[in-house]
């Protein structure tokens, strides 16, 4: 049986969550591998959440926030950018592939974009193979 990756997506309540809703309302079809978790702002996503996701068995993590300048809370997404950049450095030191964590922007009107990012991420993580925290990723 082929490998079906499990991916957690942190969705901002105001943009990407609604973008994902729109994808559903428009009956677009996408990979079922992405499991959404709603947060009020991408800025609420603690690095710990991402580490926890990998620890609990996720093969990949998506963080989808509002486009630059569109943050419902003025500038929460800018904080996310800085936070995730730092987190990515740390993940690489832990031997976790960069491609397993992706930060993207999806507005409430971008159902199609939600679907394409979801599908891309699924295929990307499928190629990487299952994440095993026991050996700290492929680099061991």
């Amino acid at each position, binding site marked *: 049986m082929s490998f079906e990756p*499990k991916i*957690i997506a942190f969705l901002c309540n*105001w*943009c990407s*969550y*609604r973008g*994902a*809703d729109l*994808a*559903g*309302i428009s*009956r*677009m*079809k*996408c990979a*079922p591998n992405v*499991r*959404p*978790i*709603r*947060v*009020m*702002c991408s*800025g*609420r*996503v*603690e690095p*710990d*959440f991402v580490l*926890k*996701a990998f620890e*609990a*068995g*996720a093969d990949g993590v998506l963080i989808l926030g509002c486009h630059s*300048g*569109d943050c*419902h*809370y*003025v*500038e*929460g997404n800018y*904080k996310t950018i800085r*936070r995730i950049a730092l987190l990515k450095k740390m993940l690489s030191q832990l031997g976790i592939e960069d491609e397993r964590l992706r930060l993207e922007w999806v*507005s*409430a*009107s*971008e159902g199609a974009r939600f*679907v394409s990012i979801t599908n891309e991420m699924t295929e990307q993580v499928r190629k990487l193979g299952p994440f095993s925290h026991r050996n700290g990723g492929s680099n061991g």
Partner: protein
Amino acid sequence: MKDKIRIGVYICHCGTNIAGTVDVKEVAKFIQGLPSVVIAKDYMYMCSDPGQNMIKEDIKQFGLNRVVVASCSPMLHEHTFRQAVQDAGLNPYLFEMANIREHCSWITEDPKLATEKAKALVSAAVRRIYYQEPLEVREVPVTPSVLVVGGGIAGIQASLEIANAGHKVYLVEREPSIGGHMAQFDKTFPTLDCASCIFTPLLSAVGQNPNIELMTYSEVEEVSGYIGNFKAKIRKRARHVDEDKCNGCLVCVEKCPWKAVSEFDEGLTERKAIYTPFAQAVPNVPVIDTEHCVYFSKGTCRACEKFCDPKAIDFKQQDKEVEVEVGAIIVATGYDAFDPSAITDYGYGRYGNVITALQFERMCNASGPTGGNIVLKDGSEPKSIAIIHCVGSRDKNYHEYCSRVCCMYSLKYSHLIKEKIEDAEVYQFYIDMRCFGKGYEEFYERLSNEGVNFIRGKVGEVTDRTITEEEQGKLVVVAEDSLMSTMIRVPADMVILSTALEARSDAEAVARLFNISRSADGFFLERHPKLDPVATTTEGTFVVGCAQGPKDIPDAVAQASAAAARVLAMISQGKVEIEAAIAVIDEELCSGCKICNLLCPYSAITSDEEKKVSLINEALCKGCGVCVAACPSAAIAGKHFTTEQIMAEIEGVLV
């Protein structure tokens, strides 16, 4: 000690919307086996009365203290179910929703995989709700006044509705007079009512209404606060004419020797450097355009001042900033007309007799630059006029959307042309005729019998390169007649471009100012396209008229009245509920590092220097959680999105 957690889980079929893809029985069976789940049921329509009653009865019968409903998006029914559990005596925050419709059944093809995903989503909600706490819903009083931004037909309608109900309205308009685009129109479709006759009484009603404080030539610069309690800073630009002293005689305008292009007449004529945009302007107080007034550039002239009896001219007047407190905001900032010079093949700006729809509107208007006569650049009467539809609309190069009003105003133009120039040939180049409103199809039918030529096809080019003798001295419209499948060349004296309605060029900045979202087409985004079409994602802020999307006058007026009703409901309640899910600092854990103070976008966090801890102002906090994620001591909890709850959700969603 905490009561034993007893969770009830309800899986909705949503007819076949969910149950058609997801095996709801299997999900319920799986969930029944999870810790603390007392009961898991599936039901046809959870949001129906029997569905809600089932939850209420189970809460009593089984002593449930947590409820999960797995159905549609929380954007649709979270409120419904929170209300239901509250009716049964549970705190509304002890309810959680799993979105297995939009995020699962509708978006997943394979029923097996959809069922697995649904199990994961419901399991996440069950794990999460275990840690959810009751929260106190906070109520705040509503300031019984309203800010309306934009004085076109939509803003005027909303203002009058609210003011007539006895409440204070601050109506802010950027231009020197209210009126917006509607003031420029000649007739309105399909009734052919004279726009001025139906509109100018409304303008003066606004000017005379004691409940409306009209601020023209003004712009909102800053908005703070929250539903029920907004503060807005408004810059009243210097008119250089004292509004209190001016008696509206307009002798100053008459005496002013300096001229500039008239914006109101779409560049077809000139206005003075001191001017009112049009004769029925409200307020009837002129402004000095400092860019074209010679006194401001060279320091001499002062003709207006000399002839002003009431001594109202004030060259030294400065911009004024005023702050108002309002309970709600209605954004009615309208649209821009598409600039057709972008489509170079249509020759706008190159050929003088290619004009825009709004220019034609002014030309047709009896108080317009030609006194209502349809004339060519050389002053002669056109004998053939081509009207090109969808200029900038339904075009992937510009705007994909349909601007909705152009078919109808183009039909109106045909009628007006025929009325004024009986023997004129009128050609309508259309893609599809969209006559969707009440009486619109009938109007089309009527025009079809008035001898108008309808040609279905997109125009490729407007050119002055003539071939035949008949084309000599005329413009030639080159198009494909898609019904005949041939290319045609139609000679015309005048070409009218039915230009698209597009989002204001500064819509992005305005969206940020009022903290509202925009849709892909650039217009402001409503909270729900069907069930909440005038609200926005910012509570207490509404959007009406063309700022929300292209629409005709009846729709703009209906939206404005709808928003006014929403605002009046808030005011008559006198109070609104505000978000309980805010951040709270545990003083025991806070090290006083102040990292959160700087991060907070609302300046809601301050520092208590004595206690060496940070404090959150509950009224200002909006619950984004940025501070929660940043606190190095984990001293800040984001209520309803606590670290514990999200960690549990992560575990649950990975089953």
